[in-house]
């Protein structure tokens, strides 16, 4: 049953990813991407990561993709659709990506799961996923968490600075 779910979600993710890449229209790409994110969130649920699934939907689908859409519409790139969508050097891109894929797949067998951590599925379920994540995040990863907020601040300032019209 779970395998069936996984099969569906995984197949959808792959197909949607390809659609994202091969769409001529950027708006379509973004919309395929939205669907892909939702399926990805489903996969997270399969892995008992409810909080992450929620974040995925809220942040990615709700925030990032909306930003993308805004920009596409702001720029109003209509001629793009008539032109060649891939660069001249696409065979190189294909071969390099395939090479990396094969290398990665070949490396996968090296992963081991025998070094178990303290958060078994039961432990997570006992404390609930959100709380467990919060415990780790706000204790052990407190400093990175704060730095992440700084990163976001810098991104905001940078984005505003870059995108605003030059004041003469």
């Amino acid at each position: 049953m779970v395998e069936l779910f996984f099969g569906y979600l995984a197949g959808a993710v792959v197909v949607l990813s390809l659609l994202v890449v091969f769409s001529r229209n950027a708006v379509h790409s973004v919309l395929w991407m939205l669907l892909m994110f939702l399926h990805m969130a489903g996969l997270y649920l399969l892995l008992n990561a409810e909080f992450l699934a929620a974040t995925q939907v809220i942040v990615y689908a709700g925030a990032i993709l909306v930003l993308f859409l805004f920009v596409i519409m702001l720029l109003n790139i209509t001629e793009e659709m008539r032109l060649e969508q891939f660069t001249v050097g696409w065979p190189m891109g294909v071969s390099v990506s395939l090479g990396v894929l094969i290398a990665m797949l070949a490396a996968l067998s090296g992963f081991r799961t025998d070094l178990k951590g303290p958060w078994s599925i039961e432990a997570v379920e006992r404390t609930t996923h959100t709380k467990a994540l919060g415990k780790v995040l706000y204790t052990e990863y407190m400093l990175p968490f704060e730095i992440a907020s700084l990163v976001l601040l810098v991104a905001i300032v940078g984005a505003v600075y870059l995108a605003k019209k030059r004041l003469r």
Partner: protein
Amino acid sequence: MVPLHWYLWLGSVVFAIGMFGFLTKRNVIIMLLSIELMLNGVNISLVALSHYMQDLRGQILVFFIIVVAAAEAAIGLAIVIALFRNKATAHVDEITGMKG
């Protein structure tokens, strides 16, 4: 029970698709989307590993990746806007300002 490797396979494939998109698409915005794809490929692998190794640190990392992805998208899109304003193109192969 789904084996770990299935997830890793999936992550790798999504990553590779993203990479392919990044390396071949002319449209800068779709290149940025492809980066998001690659990040998602990594994310799913991390979450899967976290699940199977019973350790939440993988998910913490995913959390940070999402933060960085958000920041990256903001900056990247701002750059796209600035670029489009200056060069009037969103085609990456027409931008060679980094030539040595």
